[in-house]
Protein backbone atom coordinates (compact mmCIF):
# COMPACT_ATOMS: atom_id res chain seq x y z
CA UNK A 1 0.00 0.00 0.00
CA UNK A 2 1.42 3.33 -1.01
CA UNK A 3 1.81 6.23 1.34
CA UNK A 4 -0.87 8.13 -0.51
CA UNK A 5 -3.29 5.25 -0.04
CA UNK A 6 -2.45 5.07 3.62
CA UNK A 7 -3.14 8.76 4.00
CA UNK A 8 -6.48 8.49 2.22
CA UNK A 9 -7.46 5.50 4.33
CA UNK A 10 -6.59 7.36 7.53
CA UNK A 11 -8.53 10.41 6.38
CA UNK A 12 -11.58 8.31 5.50
CA UNK A 13 -11.47 6.57 8.85
CA UNK A 14 -11.27 9.91 10.60
CA UNK A 15 -14.25 11.34 8.73
CA UNK A 16 -16.37 8.26 9.39
CA UNK A 17 -15.50 8.25 13.05
CA UNK A 18 -16.25 11.94 13.44
CA UNK A 19 -19.55 11.52 11.64
CA UNK A 20 -20.46 8.62 13.92
CA UNK A 21 -19.50 10.57 17.01
CA UNK A 22 -21.46 13.60 15.88
CA UNK A 23 -24.52 11.54 15.17
CA UNK A 24 -24.28 10.00 18.62
CA UNK A 25 -23.95 13.33 20.36
CA UNK A 26 -27.00 14.40 22.36
CA UNK A 27 -28.83 17.22 20.66
CA UNK A 28 -28.20 15.92 17.18
CA UNK A 29 -31.24 15.14 15.12
CA UNK A 30 -32.55 11.66 15.75
CA UNK A 31 -35.89 10.12 15.05
CA UNK A 32 -36.63 9.21 18.64
CA UNK A 33 -39.49 10.34 20.83
CA UNK A 34 -39.32 13.79 22.25
CA UNK A 35 -39.56 14.12 26.01
CA UNK A 36 -42.12 16.31 27.70
CA UNK A 37 -40.11 19.48 27.93
CA UNK A 38 -40.37 23.22 28.32
CA UNK A 39 -41.43 23.79 24.73
CA UNK A 40 -44.32 21.36 24.94
CA UNK A 41 -45.44 22.80 28.26
CA UNK A 42 -45.31 26.30 26.87
CA UNK A 43 -47.52 25.29 23.97
CA UNK A 44 -50.01 23.56 26.25
CA UNK A 45 -50.12 26.60 28.51
CA UNK A 46 -50.79 28.88 25.56
CA UNK A 47 -53.53 26.56 24.29
CA UNK A 48 -55.14 26.47 27.73
CA UNK A 49 -55.09 30.25 27.98
CA UNK A 50 -56.69 30.72 24.59
CA UNK A 51 -59.39 28.12 25.31
CA UNK A 52 -60.33 29.90 28.53
CA UNK A 53 -60.25 33.23 26.74
CA UNK A 54 -62.73 31.73 24.23
CA UNK A 55 -64.88 30.52 27.17
CA UNK A 56 -65.14 34.02 28.58
CA UNK A 57 -66.07 35.48 25.22
CA UNK A 58 -68.60 32.74 24.57
CA UNK A 59 -70.25 33.36 27.92
CA UNK A 60 -70.42 37.05 27.01
CA UNK A 61 -72.09 36.16 23.72
CA UNK A 62 -69.01 37.20 21.74
CA UNK A 63 -68.81 34.25 19.35
CA UNK A 64 -66.53 36.07 16.86
CA UNK A 65 -64.17 36.81 19.79
CA UNK A 66 -64.13 33.12 20.70
CA UNK A 67 -63.50 32.22 17.06
CA UNK A 68 -60.60 34.67 16.97
CA UNK A 69 -59.06 33.03 20.04
CA UNK A 70 -59.20 29.59 18.39
CA UNK A 71 -57.83 30.97 15.14
CA UNK A 72 -54.84 32.27 17.08
CA UNK A 73 -54.29 28.87 18.62
CA UNK A 74 -54.28 26.91 15.38
CA UNK A 75 -51.65 29.13 13.79
CA UNK A 76 -49.39 29.49 16.80
CA UNK A 77 -45.84 28.17 16.53
CA UNK A 78 -45.51 24.52 17.44
CA UNK A 79 -42.81 22.87 19.53
CA UNK A 80 -40.46 20.45 17.81
CA UNK A 81 -41.79 21.01 14.30
CA UNK A 82 -39.39 18.38 12.97
CA UNK A 83 -40.79 15.72 15.30
CA UNK A 84 -44.52 15.67 15.92
CA UNK A 85 -45.52 15.44 19.56
CA UNK A 86 -48.83 13.55 19.88
CA UNK A 87 -50.18 15.90 22.57
CA UNK A 88 -49.57 18.90 20.40
CA UNK A 89 -51.24 17.31 17.41
CA UNK A 90 -54.26 16.29 19.49
CA UNK A 91 -54.62 19.72 21.08
CA UNK A 92 -54.49 21.31 17.66
CA UNK A 93 -57.12 18.87 16.36
CA UNK A 94 -59.37 19.72 19.30
CA UNK A 95 -58.85 23.44 18.69
CA UNK A 96 -59.87 23.00 15.06
CA UNK A 97 -62.95 21.07 16.23
CA UNK A 98 -63.94 23.90 18.57
CA UNK A 99 -63.29 26.45 15.84
CA UNK A 100 -65.57 24.46 13.54
CA UNK A 101 -68.28 24.31 16.22
CA UNK A 102 -68.10 28.08 16.77
CA UNK A 103 -68.28 28.80 13.07
CA UNK A 104 -71.20 26.38 12.85
CA UNK A 105 -73.01 28.30 15.60
CA UNK A 106 -72.43 31.47 13.62
CA UNK A 107 -73.83 29.81 10.49
CA UNK A 108 -70.54 29.85 8.56
CA UNK A 109 -70.75 26.29 7.26
CA UNK A 110 -67.98 26.30 4.69
CA UNK A 111 -65.42 27.85 7.04
CA UNK A 112 -66.53 25.34 9.64
CA UNK A 113 -65.95 22.48 7.19
CA UNK A 114 -62.54 23.93 6.38
CA UNK A 115 -61.65 23.89 10.08
CA UNK A 116 -62.66 20.25 10.34
CA UNK A 117 -60.49 19.42 7.36
CA UNK A 118 -57.56 21.18 9.00
CA UNK A 119 -58.10 19.28 12.24
CA UNK A 120 -58.24 15.90 10.54
CA UNK A 121 -54.72 16.47 9.21
CA UNK A 122 -53.44 16.33 12.78
CA UNK A 123 -55.14 13.08 13.82
CA UNK A 124 -55.12 10.24 11.32
CA UNK A 125 -55.54 7.36 13.76
CA UNK A 126 -58.93 6.38 15.22
CA UNK A 127 -59.06 8.36 18.46
CA UNK A 128 -61.64 10.36 20.37
CA UNK A 129 -60.12 13.47 18.79
CA UNK A 130 -60.65 12.21 15.24
CA UNK A 131 -64.09 10.89 16.18
CA UNK A 132 -65.03 14.28 17.58
CA UNK A 133 -63.87 16.06 14.42
CA UNK A 134 -65.88 13.73 12.20
CA UNK A 135 -68.84 14.20 14.52
CA UNK A 136 -68.63 17.98 14.09
CA UNK A 137 -68.31 17.43 10.35
CA UNK A 138 -71.55 15.42 10.45
CA UNK A 139 -73.26 18.21 12.39
CA UNK A 140 -72.10 20.70 9.77
CA UNK A 141 -73.59 18.60 6.99
CA UNK A 142 -76.78 18.22 8.99
CA UNK A 143 -76.98 22.02 9.31
CA UNK A 144 -76.19 22.37 5.62
CA UNK A 145 -79.07 20.01 4.80
CA UNK A 146 -81.42 22.12 6.90
CA UNK A 147 -80.27 25.32 5.20
CA UNK A 148 -80.76 23.75 1.78
CA UNK A 149 -84.19 22.46 2.76
CA UNK A 150 -85.18 25.89 4.04
CA UNK A 151 -83.99 27.30 0.74
CA UNK A 152 -86.19 24.82 -1.12
CA UNK A 153 -83.22 22.94 -2.58
CA UNK A 154 -84.66 19.53 -1.78
CA UNK A 155 -82.24 17.44 -3.82
CA UNK A 156 -79.11 19.07 -2.40
CA UNK A 157 -80.66 18.92 1.06
CA UNK A 158 -81.15 15.18 0.65
CA UNK A 159 -77.54 14.70 -0.45
CA UNK A 160 -76.29 16.75 2.49
CA UNK A 161 -78.46 14.77 4.83
CA UNK A 162 -77.12 11.51 3.43
CA UNK A 163 -73.58 12.80 3.79
CA UNK A 164 -74.28 13.74 7.39
CA UNK A 165 -75.58 10.25 8.12
CA UNK A 166 -72.45 8.70 6.58
CA UNK A 167 -70.20 10.91 8.66
CA UNK A 168 -72.07 10.17 11.86
CA UNK A 169 -71.91 6.48 11.03
CA UNK A 170 -68.18 6.86 10.61
CA UNK A 171 -68.10 8.42 14.07
CA UNK A 172 -69.72 5.33 15.49
CA UNK A 173 -67.10 3.15 13.81
CA UNK A 174 -64.26 5.27 15.05
CA UNK A 175 -65.53 5.27 18.59
CA UNK A 176 -66.03 1.50 18.44
CA UNK A 177 -62.42 1.17 17.34
CA UNK A 178 -61.29 3.38 20.15
CA UNK A 179 -63.26 1.42 22.71
CA UNK A 180 -61.99 -1.92 21.39
CA UNK A 181 -58.45 -0.62 21.35
CA UNK A 182 -58.82 0.66 24.88
CA UNK A 183 -60.25 -2.62 26.12
CA UNK A 184 -57.45 -4.53 24.42
CA UNK A 185 -54.82 -2.47 26.16
CA UNK A 186 -56.59 -2.96 29.48
CA UNK A 187 -56.53 -6.74 28.99
CA UNK A 188 -60.29 -7.05 28.51
CA UNK A 189 -62.07 -9.12 25.88
Amino acid at each position, binding site marked *: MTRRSMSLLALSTLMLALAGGFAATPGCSRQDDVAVDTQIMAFLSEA*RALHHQANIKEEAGDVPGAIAAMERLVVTSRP*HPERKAPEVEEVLADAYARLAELRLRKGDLDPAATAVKGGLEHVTEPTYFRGHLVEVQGLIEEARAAQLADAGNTAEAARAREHAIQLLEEVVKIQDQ*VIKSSLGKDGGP
Partner: protein
Amino acid sequence: MVERDDDRHVPDDFDDPDAPASAEEVAASKRLRDALEGASGEGHATPEAELAFALRAAWEPGSLSVDESRAVLDATPSAEEQALASLLRDALADRREPRESDNAAVHFAHALRAAFAPSELDAAEHRAIIDAALAKMPTQVSGESVAKTAAKNELAAPQAILDRAKTVDDKDNVVSLRRRATVVRVAFGIVAGGLALAASIVFVVTSAPMREHEAPLAKARTTAPLFSEPFKPGETSARIDRIASARASDFRDNRFTKWGVR
Protein backbone atom coordinates in the same frame (compact mmCIF):
# COMPACT_ATOMS: atom_id res chain seq x y z
CA MET B 1 19.71 120.14 80.02
CA VAL B 2 23.30 118.82 80.02
CA GLU B 3 23.83 115.16 80.43
CA ARG B 4 26.22 114.31 83.27
CA ASP B 5 29.07 111.68 83.09
CA ASP B 6 27.65 109.72 85.94
CA ASP B 7 24.56 109.12 83.91
CA ARG B 8 26.46 107.33 80.97
CA HIS B 9 25.42 103.65 80.58
CA VAL B 10 28.19 101.00 80.07
CA PRO B 11 26.88 97.62 78.67
CA ASP B 12 27.62 94.51 80.73
CA ASP B 13 29.27 92.54 77.79
CA PHE B 14 31.64 95.30 76.82
CA ASP B 15 34.95 93.57 75.63
CA ASP B 16 37.86 95.54 76.78
CA PRO B 17 41.10 94.39 75.03
CA ASP B 18 43.14 95.73 77.84
CA ALA B 19 41.19 93.92 80.47
CA PRO B 20 43.16 91.22 82.38
CA ALA B 21 42.64 87.52 81.35
CA SER B 22 39.91 85.76 83.12
CA ALA B 23 40.44 82.49 84.87
CA GLU B 24 38.67 80.60 82.10
CA GLU B 25 40.92 82.09 79.45
CA VAL B 26 43.99 81.21 81.44
CA ALA B 27 42.88 77.57 81.72
CA ALA B 28 42.19 77.30 77.96
CA SER B 29 45.60 78.73 77.16
CA LYS B 30 47.27 76.23 79.43
CA ARG B 31 45.46 73.29 77.75
CA LEU B 32 46.59 74.46 74.30
CA ARG B 33 50.18 74.88 75.43
CA ASP B 34 50.25 71.45 76.99
CA ALA B 35 48.85 69.93 73.81
CA LEU B 36 51.44 71.58 71.57
CA GLU B 37 54.22 70.43 73.82
CA GLY B 38 53.00 66.83 73.58
CA ALA B 39 54.30 64.20 71.17
CA SER B 40 51.31 64.25 68.85
CA GLY B 41 48.01 65.95 68.45
CA GLU B 42 46.00 62.74 68.90
CA GLY B 43 43.38 62.91 71.55
CA HIS B 44 42.89 66.66 71.30
CA ALA B 45 39.52 67.13 69.79
CA THR B 46 39.11 70.80 70.41
CA PRO B 47 39.06 72.93 67.28
CA GLU B 48 41.70 75.22 68.67
CA ALA B 49 44.11 72.32 69.24
CA GLU B 50 43.53 70.83 65.78
CA LEU B 51 44.14 74.19 64.16
CA ALA B 52 47.30 74.63 66.17
CA PHE B 53 48.66 71.21 65.16
CA ALA B 54 47.84 71.83 61.48
CA LEU B 55 49.68 75.16 61.57
CA ARG B 56 52.72 73.65 63.22
CA ALA B 57 52.85 70.68 60.75
CA ALA B 58 52.70 73.07 57.83
CA TRP B 59 55.35 75.36 59.28
CA GLU B 60 57.63 72.74 60.72
CA PRO B 61 56.72 69.19 59.48
CA GLY B 62 57.94 66.34 61.63
CA SER B 63 59.32 62.94 60.56
CA LEU B 64 56.96 59.94 59.87
CA SER B 65 56.96 56.97 62.15
CA VAL B 66 57.73 53.48 60.79
CA ASP B 67 54.07 52.49 60.90
CA GLU B 68 52.97 55.64 59.17
CA SER B 69 55.55 55.13 56.46
CA ARG B 70 54.46 51.50 55.87
CA ALA B 71 50.81 52.51 55.66
CA VAL B 72 51.60 55.09 53.01
CA LEU B 73 53.59 52.54 51.01
CA ASP B 74 50.78 49.94 51.19
CA ALA B 75 48.23 52.39 49.86
CA THR B 76 50.40 53.30 46.87
CA PRO B 77 50.25 50.82 43.88
CA SER B 78 53.50 49.56 42.61
CA ALA B 79 54.64 49.98 39.02
CA GLU B 80 53.94 46.31 38.33
CA GLU B 81 50.45 46.63 39.74
CA GLN B 82 49.85 49.73 37.68
CA ALA B 83 50.97 47.92 34.52
CA LEU B 84 48.66 44.97 35.22
CA ALA B 85 45.77 47.33 35.85
CA SER B 86 46.39 49.07 32.54
CA LEU B 87 46.50 45.75 30.74
CA LEU B 88 43.24 44.63 32.31
CA ARG B 89 41.55 47.92 31.51
CA ASP B 90 42.61 47.73 27.88
CA ALA B 91 41.52 44.10 27.55
CA LEU B 92 38.05 44.88 28.86
CA ALA B 93 37.69 48.12 26.95
CA ASP B 94 37.92 46.70 23.41
CA ARG B 95 35.59 43.78 24.27
CA ARG B 96 37.85 41.33 22.50
CA GLU B 97 38.14 37.67 23.36
CA PRO B 98 41.09 37.01 25.74
CA ARG B 99 44.12 35.52 24.08
CA GLU B 100 45.95 32.54 25.42
CA SER B 101 48.90 34.80 26.08
CA ASP B 102 46.83 37.11 28.21
CA ASN B 103 47.24 37.24 31.92
CA ALA B 104 45.02 34.99 33.99
CA ALA B 105 43.44 38.09 35.45
CA VAL B 106 42.26 39.05 31.95
CA HIS B 107 40.58 35.66 31.46
CA PHE B 108 39.01 35.92 34.88
CA ALA B 109 37.69 39.45 34.28
CA HIS B 110 36.30 38.42 30.90
CA ALA B 111 34.50 35.45 32.46
CA LEU B 112 33.03 37.70 35.14
CA ARG B 113 31.76 40.16 32.58
CA ALA B 114 30.27 37.39 30.39
CA ALA B 115 28.44 36.00 33.39
CA PHE B 116 27.13 39.38 34.49
CA ALA B 117 26.25 40.87 31.09
CA PRO B 118 26.57 38.29 28.31
CA SER B 119 26.83 39.60 24.80
CA GLU B 120 24.84 38.18 21.88
CA LEU B 121 26.28 35.37 19.81
CA ASP B 122 26.61 36.02 16.12
CA ALA B 123 25.32 33.44 13.65
CA ALA B 124 28.72 32.02 12.85
CA GLU B 125 29.61 31.57 16.49
CA HIS B 126 26.23 30.01 17.18
CA ARG B 127 26.66 27.57 14.32
CA ALA B 128 30.15 26.71 15.50
CA ILE B 129 28.86 25.85 18.95
CA ILE B 130 26.07 23.67 17.52
CA ASP B 131 28.46 21.92 15.17
CA ALA B 132 30.85 21.28 17.97
CA ALA B 133 28.07 19.82 20.10
CA LEU B 134 26.67 17.69 17.27
CA ALA B 135 30.08 16.40 16.40
CA LYS B 136 30.10 14.63 19.73
CA MET B 137 26.88 12.75 18.83
CA PRO B 138 26.80 9.47 16.86
CA THR B 139 27.01 10.28 13.16
CA GLN B 140 24.78 7.36 12.03
CA VAL B 141 21.56 9.20 12.90
CA SER B 142 19.41 9.63 9.79
CA GLY B 143 16.05 11.10 8.89
CA GLU B 144 14.45 7.67 8.98
CA SER B 145 15.60 7.01 12.51
CA VAL B 146 14.35 10.41 13.58
CA ALA B 147 10.98 9.64 12.02
CA LYS B 148 10.85 6.37 13.93
CA THR B 149 11.76 8.20 17.08
CA ALA B 150 8.97 10.68 16.47
CA ALA B 151 6.47 7.92 15.84
CA LYS B 152 7.57 6.02 18.91
CA ASN B 153 7.22 9.09 21.06
CA GLU B 154 3.85 9.98 19.52
CA LEU B 155 4.92 13.26 18.03
CA ALA B 156 6.72 14.29 21.15
CA ALA B 157 10.02 14.51 19.31
CA PRO B 158 11.59 17.79 20.17
CA GLN B 159 12.48 20.24 17.49
CA ALA B 160 16.11 19.65 18.21
CA ILE B 161 15.86 16.09 16.94
CA LEU B 162 14.21 17.27 13.75
CA ASP B 163 16.87 19.89 13.35
CA ARG B 164 19.43 17.23 13.95
CA ALA B 165 17.90 15.14 11.19
CA LYS B 166 18.05 18.03 8.80
CA THR B 167 21.65 18.74 9.69
CA VAL B 168 22.68 15.16 9.22
CA ASP B 169 20.69 14.86 6.02
CA ASP B 170 22.40 17.90 4.64
CA LYS B 171 25.75 16.56 5.59
CA ASP B 172 25.09 13.13 4.17
CA ASN B 173 23.60 14.56 0.97
CA VAL B 174 20.28 12.79 1.56
CA VAL B 175 17.14 14.43 0.22
CA SER B 176 15.82 15.75 3.48
CA LEU B 177 12.41 16.81 2.11
CA ARG B 178 11.40 13.22 1.54
CA ARG B 179 12.31 12.27 5.09
CA ARG B 180 10.39 15.23 6.39
CA ALA B 181 7.35 14.26 4.32
CA THR B 182 7.52 10.80 5.84
CA VAL B 183 7.46 12.33 9.30
CA VAL B 184 4.41 14.38 8.36
CA ARG B 185 2.59 11.33 7.05
CA VAL B 186 3.31 9.34 10.15
CA ALA B 187 2.22 12.26 12.30
CA PHE B 188 -1.00 12.63 10.32
CA GLY B 189 -1.75 8.95 10.68
CA ILE B 190 -1.25 9.09 14.43
CA VAL B 191 -3.42 12.17 14.81
CA ALA B 192 -6.15 10.72 12.61
CA GLY B 193 -6.07 7.47 14.51
CA GLY B 194 -6.29 9.27 17.83
CA LEU B 195 -9.26 11.33 16.74
CA ALA B 196 -10.98 8.26 15.34
CA LEU B 197 -10.50 6.48 18.64
CA ALA B 198 -11.88 9.48 20.55
CA ALA B 199 -14.91 9.68 18.29
CA SER B 200 -15.52 5.98 18.74
CA ILE B 201 -15.42 6.40 22.51
CA VAL B 202 -17.93 9.24 22.25
CA PHE B 203 -20.16 7.01 20.13
CA VAL B 204 -19.99 4.12 22.57
CA VAL B 205 -20.59 6.32 25.61
CA THR B 206 -23.49 8.26 24.17
CA SER B 207 -25.18 5.25 22.63
CA ALA B 208 -24.83 3.15 25.76
CA PRO B 209 -28.11 2.15 27.44
CA MET B 210 -29.32 4.30 30.26
CA ARG B 211 -27.90 3.47 33.62
CA GLU B 212 -30.11 1.41 35.85
CA HIS B 213 -30.53 4.04 38.51
CA GLU B 214 -31.68 6.64 36.01
CA ALA B 215 -35.44 6.89 35.57
CA PRO B 216 -36.51 7.24 31.93
CA LEU B 217 -37.86 10.59 30.85
CA ALA B 218 -41.58 10.87 30.20
CA LYS B 219 -42.00 11.05 26.46
CA ALA B 220 -44.55 12.94 24.46
CA ARG B 221 -47.44 10.61 23.75
CA THR B 222 -51.14 10.49 22.95
CA THR B 223 -53.51 11.86 25.53
CA ALA B 224 -56.18 9.29 24.68
CA PRO B 225 -55.69 7.38 27.97
CA LEU B 226 -56.79 10.51 29.81
CA PHE B 227 -60.29 10.21 28.35
CA SER B 228 -62.56 7.25 28.93
CA GLU B 229 -65.52 8.27 26.84
CA PRO B 230 -66.27 10.14 23.60
CA PHE B 231 -66.06 13.90 23.75
CA LYS B 232 -69.14 15.94 24.39
CA PRO B 233 -69.80 19.38 22.98
CA GLY B 234 -68.72 22.27 25.21
CA GLU B 235 -66.03 20.35 27.05
CA THR B 236 -63.07 21.40 24.96
CA SER B 237 -61.52 23.67 27.58
CA ALA B 238 -62.00 20.97 30.21
CA ARG B 239 -60.00 18.62 28.03
CA ILE B 240 -57.13 21.01 27.56
CA ASP B 241 -57.15 21.57 31.31
CA ARG B 242 -56.79 17.87 31.87
CA ILE B 243 -54.09 17.47 29.24
CA ALA B 244 -52.05 20.39 30.55
CA SER B 245 -52.34 19.18 34.11
CA ALA B 246 -51.22 15.65 33.22
CA ARG B 247 -48.27 16.83 31.16
CA ALA B 248 -47.25 19.31 33.84
CA SER B 249 -46.80 16.38 36.15
CA ASP B 250 -44.70 14.59 33.53
CA PHE B 251 -42.67 17.74 33.01
CA ARG B 252 -41.89 18.03 36.71
CA ASP B 253 -40.86 14.38 36.81
CA ASN B 254 -38.55 14.90 33.86
CA ARG B 255 -36.90 17.88 35.50
CA PHE B 256 -36.31 15.95 38.71
CA THR B 257 -34.90 13.07 36.68
CA LYS B 258 -32.52 15.38 34.83
CA TRP B 259 -31.43 16.89 38.14
CA GLY B 260 -30.68 13.37 39.36
CA VAL B 261 -33.06 13.47 42.31
CA ARG B 262 -34.99 10.40 41.28
